[in-house]
């Protein structure tokens, strides 16, 4: 299977067909969907109805009482989540959300309009749970639950990255992310997850991180990075692992210790901590900041998240510092304390360097690295040489969750402006709270669904293209591990010539460390002088 060329993928028709969506059965296409979860990975974490099946087969081997399971699951979730009830009841189908979704804008598939995505489930709700729907059926917008509907739900709930952009524009605040989260929970009851989510969940649960890096491997990977830092910056750093008594527990997505370009962000964190003399440790047990459980079920999210507090308590940390990650921060900011708090065994976070109290995190006791770094810069605690980043023309991609489930908009910009001389914003409808998703969030960053990833990445990439052409932007900065993992592919496809970098990488490149060398190389091992010449 090859990915279509940009000429083809950028020809998009936003006008839906005349045939209504209820009359159009789902057509499952390769390139759009992800491989089903392997049964053993489901069993690993004791989730129900693990079985083998294929999206392209007619029969998905659903359990015998699949309908009962689904309806019972819906009933339970209606009772547990007011949001679900209200979002099922009050949509007026004004259509304001329709052209807000990156998947709709990139694919033109009308069922990717957020309103229709939610209607896929709402029609089932009306048909089963409302009197009018039970009596009038289709006239009341209801439809029966069939095996085809299950397929449709699966196909489209795994084409939503829970980015919440549509929710921003909804006059009633209907959040498709909430509908997708619950929709995926229901599908999980039938054993219908995707493996790109399920395997990381199993890994994270049993081994400690999504990538399945065992304790020694995790440590070794970081030690390689330490070696790299020594060769490029001339400074030897000795990070500690699982160290009891450390003041701060540092947790970041495991992608940062595994793959380019997240690795450079990880190097950045460590150089920053070395520079300020932070008393911190990294855990091999709670070695995952991200939470693919959140893309599975609330319960799974909670189970994976528990490790953070559990580990902080074990080592006796005063508070937790979190790395750059998108959905990790959705979970930390909006769920963690509720899931697994109260974190009364820790202290209200105070920066040991500046004395700043992070009052906004006084209950959860977890601070974002960008909040922490911005505070350091504000208090002149970092020695910086911006000009080392002069070959970079930087733009900033707000990650969905830090933007729309947190509101961390200024901190990263403040940091960039202090470590880079050339910073350009993308068009206003594509940044800050209106930011577009990378196209591969919420566990959809597999390779078999590359076509939809690139299509979904189009609105973001197109805005990058604008500043690339106008200002010569060549660096797409971000604060999200999934961004770092997926945007390079999207850039290569849509806007060749733009690199992707975590903000902490930019910080570390500008950092004047004690005992450093001439800093002829950046953290990627590229010669800065020749980069400047090229630029």
């Amino acid at each position: 299977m090859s990915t279509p060329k940009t000429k083809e993928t950028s020809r998009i028709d936003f006008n839906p067909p005349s045939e209504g969506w209820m009359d159009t059965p789902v057509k499952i296409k390769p390139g759009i969907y992800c491989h089903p979860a392997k049964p053993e990975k489901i069993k690993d974490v004791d989730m129900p109805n693990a079985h083998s099946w294929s999206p392209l087969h007619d029969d998905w081997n659903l359990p015998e009482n699949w309908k009962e399971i689904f309806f019972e699951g819906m009933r339970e979730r209606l009772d547990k989540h007011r949001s679900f009830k209200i979002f099922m009841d009050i949509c007026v189908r004004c259509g304001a959300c329709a052209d807000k979704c990156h998947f709709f804008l990139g694919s033109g598939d009308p069922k990717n309009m957020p309103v229709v995505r939610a209607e896929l489930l709402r029609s089932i709700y009306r048909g089963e749970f409302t009197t009018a729907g039970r009596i009038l059926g289709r006239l009341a917008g209801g439809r029966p639950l069939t095996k085809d509907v299950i397929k449709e739900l699966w196909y489209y709930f795994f084409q939503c990255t829970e980015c919440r952009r549509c929710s921003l524009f909804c006059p009633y605040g209907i959040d498709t992310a909430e509908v997708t989260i619950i929709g995926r929970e229901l599908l999980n009851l039938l054993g219908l997850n995707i493996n790109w989510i399920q395997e990381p969940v199993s890994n994270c649960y049993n081994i400690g991180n999504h990538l399945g890096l065992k304790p020694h491997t995790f440590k070794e990977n970081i030690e390689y990075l330490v070696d790299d830092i020594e060769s490029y910056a001339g400074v030897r750093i000795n990070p500690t692992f699982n160290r009891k008594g450390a003041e701060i527990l540092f947790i970041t997505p495991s992608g940062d210790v595994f793959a380019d370009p997240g690795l450079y962000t990880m190097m950045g964190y460590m150089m920053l901590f070395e520079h300020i003399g932070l008393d911190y440790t990294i855990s091999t047990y709670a070695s995952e900041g991200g939470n693919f459980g959140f893309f599975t079920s609330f319960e799974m999210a909670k189970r994976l998240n528990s490790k953070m507090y559990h580990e902080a308590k074990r080592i006796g940390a005063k508070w937790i510092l979190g790395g750059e990650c998108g959905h990790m921060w959705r979970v930390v900011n909006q769920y963690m304390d509720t899931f697994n708090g109260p974190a009364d065994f820790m202290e209200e976070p105070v920066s040991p360097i500046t004395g700043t109290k992070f009052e906004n995190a006084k209950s959860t006791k977890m601070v974002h690295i960008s909040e922490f770094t911005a505070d350091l810069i504000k208090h002149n605690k970092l020695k910086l040489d911006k000009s080392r980043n002069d070959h970079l023309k930087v733009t900033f991609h707000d990650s969905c969750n830090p933007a729309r489930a947190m509101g961390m908009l200024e901190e990263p910009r403040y940091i960039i402006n202090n470590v880079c001389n050339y910073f350009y914003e993308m068009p206003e409808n594509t940044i800050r709270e209106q930011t577009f998703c990378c196209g591969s969030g919420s566990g959809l960053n597999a390779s078999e669904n590359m076509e939809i990833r690139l299509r979904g990445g189009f609105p973001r990439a197109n805005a990058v293209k604008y500043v690339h052409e106008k200002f010569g932007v060549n660096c797409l900065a971000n604060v999200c591990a999934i961004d770092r993992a997926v945007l390079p592919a999207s850039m290569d496809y849509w806007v060749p010539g733009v690199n992707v970098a975590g903000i902490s990488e930019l910080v570390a490149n500008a950092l004047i460390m004690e005992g450093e060398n001439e800093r002829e190389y950046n953290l990627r091992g590229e010669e800065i002088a020749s980069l400047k010449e090229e630029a």
Partner: protein
Amino acid sequence: MAMTFSFFAVIAIVVVALIGALSGLHFVFGVILPYAAFAIFLVGFVNKVLNWASSPVPFRIPTTAGQQKTLPWISDSKLDNPTTTIGVIGRMVLEILFFRSLFRNTSTELRSGNLVHGPAKWLWLFALIFHWSFLLIALRHLRLFVEPVPFLIQGIESIDGMLQVGSPPIYISDLLIIAGVTFLFMRRVILPRIKYISLAADFFPLFLIFAIAATGILMRFVFRVDIVGIKTLLVSLANFSPVVPDGIGVIFFIHVALVSALMAYFPFSKLMHMGGVFLSPTRNMANNSRAVRHINPWNYPVKFHHYDEYEDHFRDVMKDAGLPLEKE
């Protein structure tokens, strides 16, 4: 199909009321029907809201639409990303009275391979016009239910009729609601995407409200009715001592039947967005979940992979790697 059905459903209500009124069933259409519809509306509405309220809000999930409150030197967006109750009230006031979120609306087009995002305020404007004129019309109808007419209602009445065009004067809100409802209808017919998502449940209330406004306007300007008789009837309804005076006019009964249909339909339809918007968790919650712990009433203990199990599993490799251990 959805549209045709809704259209004929409204026509059917008109025809039934017409036949009823002509065959002298004035008590049925003037008293029993509005009483029943109002009771269904009130009980249904309260019931629906209580039903929503019976499910908890387990997580604090505001959609943040501005800068969070963090470091003291970064100014936070107090209305679009509130952290205090006052901020939340402000956000809700803007949302409910002025449709803040819809005001953000943009439209995105593909122009020579590039996405172009621009503002799109028409829906916001006409939605605002429609809802505000609906409210004004409902309020000024109180002149026919309450004696003496409250000062506030008199004020609305005179401002609404201040154009002094014709006699009786044209109400501005009548013109606006027709404009609003027409806009909301036309976009469902003309815009392909909106047409695609429209259900019978979207057309029916529009037709119904159009018919209500139209019969109201006809009653005022064409098929004149005895307004004193109507007020006598409506006041008697409010007093629970119903009397139907003679000679009120058939169109009045049609108007009442349509309004009754709207009231009775309301609690079971999307029109409940009126109550729902107040309860939407992405809008009515403060973004302070890291500062104040939000309690989930059904939070339950879960099985997780304990550190001890982890160490038991990996002790050897951990030891080899020089990682500290709880148990050697």
